């Protein structure tokens, strides 16, 4: 079912849905950007249409909704383990096709890798409905088309923003909220067909230990400063570290939680006793690159990177991940389709 709604009507629908769902979307936060007088666009809870920022790529991905930056796994009181209370309220997320494809990668790690499912992720994941933001033109540094992540069918509703709102509703549970709020039209979302940036993917069968030891990684040993921003803005970086804390006020109580971790950041591989791996920043770039465009596919059958380009947007050293992929491809040859 597809409808055309006025912006006011769509806003009413959101307010109505807000009773049943927490609604997350990219929002503009004034003056909180990386440089003075710049804004940051990141995910936050919204209550109306005007709060949603769709003219700019969200600087951070929506992964924090499913995989929070820090998440309590247990509360401790006198040594007893207690799971946090479960919030029943369902969730709607406004996001672009690349990010919906990114969720497939998170699902792979948290739900499919190994025999156990990560229940903290699963409980959030089950509550989420995707409202896909139609994305026809993309932004600087996007290369979703090359990564085959520009299209998706996995959405509850798809939305074209404009003076009037066009909405395709796939999820029957949403029909009530939209019914009689607009007129029926023929609308199906269009997907971007060409980005400003293109990458050629490598033939992963030709990636060998020599590729790992190639001189191309030395450049990154010089340029990368191991800040980890590329990891933290990435839609598909899913690593985390366990942390226990005792509360200052009452140190017989505390919690065990997990926090995002990044393979570029110092300490990622350090073990008690002092052994660690990849001290060289070039090796960290190689490790991340290989995960995104080589070993994830060898394990799961498709590439991890979705080409959102946020890593290139955020790198303070202007390292381009898309250029790096192209360099690997130049080294080993192009993927055979």
């Amino acid at each position, binding site marked *: 079912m597809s409808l055309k709604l006025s912006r006011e009507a769509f806003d009413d629908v959101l307010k109505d849905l807000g009773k049943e769902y927490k609604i997350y979307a990219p929002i503009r936060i004034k003056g909180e950007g990386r440089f003075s007088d710049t804004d940051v666009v990141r995910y936050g809870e919204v209550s109306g249409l005007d709060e949603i920022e769709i003219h700019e790529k969200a600087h951070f991905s929506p992964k924090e909704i499913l995989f929070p930056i820090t998440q309590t*796994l*247990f509360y*401790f009181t006198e*040594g007893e*383990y207690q*799971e946090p209370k479960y919030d029943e309220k369902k969730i709607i997320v406004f996001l672009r096709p690349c990010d919906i494809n990114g969720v497939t990668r998170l699902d792979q*790690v*948290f739900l499919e*890798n*190994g*025999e*156990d*499912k*990560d*229940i*903290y992720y*699963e*409980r959030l994941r089950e509550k989420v409905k995707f409202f896909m933001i139609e994305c026809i033109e993309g932004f600087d540094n996007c290369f979703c088309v090359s990564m085959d992540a520009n299209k998706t069918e996995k959405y509850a509703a798809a939305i074209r923003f404009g003076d009037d709102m066009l909405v395709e509703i796939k999820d029957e549970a949403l029909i009530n909220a939209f019914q009689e709020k607009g007129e029926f039209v023929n609308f199906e979302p269009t997907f971007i067909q060409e980005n400003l940036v293109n990458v050629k993917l490598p033939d992963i069968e030709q990636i060998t*230990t020599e590729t*790992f030891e190639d001189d191309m990684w030395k450049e990154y040993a010089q340029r990368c400063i191991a800040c980890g921003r590329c990891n933290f803005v990435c839609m598909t970086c*899913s*690593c*985390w*570290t*366990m*942390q*226990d*804390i*005792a509360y200052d006020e009452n*140190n017989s*109580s*505390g*919690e*065990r939680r*997990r926090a995002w*971790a990044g*393979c570029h950041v110092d300490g*990622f*591989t*350090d*073990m*008690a*006793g*002092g*052994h*660690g*791996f*990849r001290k060289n920043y070039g*090796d960290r770039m190689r*490790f991340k690159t*290989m*995960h995104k465009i*080589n*070993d*994830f596919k*060898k*394990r799961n059958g498709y590439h991890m990177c979705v080409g959102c380009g946020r890593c290139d947007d955020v790198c303070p050293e202007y390292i381009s991940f898309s250029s790096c992929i192209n360099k690997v491809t130049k080294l080993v040859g192009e993927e055979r389709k």
Partner: protein
Amino acid sequence: MKNPYLPNKYMILDVQHQTDIDYTFRVACDIAPKNGQFVELSIPKIGEAPISISDFGDGYIDMTIRRVGKVTDYLHNLRPGDHMYLRGPYGNGFPLDHYKGKRLVIAAGGTGLAPVKSIINYFHQHSQEIQGLDLFIGFKSPKDILFMDEIENWMKNERFNVVLTVDKGDECWTGNVGLITQYISQESIGKDENLEVIIVGPPMMMKFTALEFLKKEILENQIWVSFERKMSCGIGKCGHCKIDETYVCLEGPVFNYTKAKKLID
């Protein structure tokens, strides 16, 4: 829904001081591991860490733990009757049946002896199941030697050939001095399809020990190693132990050398 991160509470039965900084904890528990598997050990409000199971029996497991961090510092103050929290066992473990009926060579460096100790004890008690066991054990110095009582017992086993060495001796030490690679090179180990080699220890020791065996015409597929990596989950989610497309917690920590040599951190 089952929460895979929820540990169980277990009571400490015994604490043996192996060295000043290595204690062996015996814990009453229903975990029935395979040789070479590990557990996630935690103390609420302090933290959680992956720990090898050094031995096990009916209703208990042993873990030999060096005091090197927050969790292990706390642990070393615990006594019999106190509790710790465990989840697991995790990892693949050694293929014990594959070694039966063969000549087994084990090279262990430092705390690397812990994950293979249960195998040595198994074949010590079931000597008829093996043609022979050559054991090369290296420690930094005499005061770092772990499991001395057990090593002395193994030395009495007729089917065992035990070489104990330290990197650096002291005025009381009359035994071997030097790296285990040097003692391996002196042994009459060579091309033998009925032989299996296990190497466990620090990364550099494992690398050079493997090269020493390869020099002696041992085939790559006859060599087994056990890896140690940072891990937060033990179940393939946290990403710390991943090497290429391999998760050490899921497909390891034990690898055949044909696989291990291709794993580049």
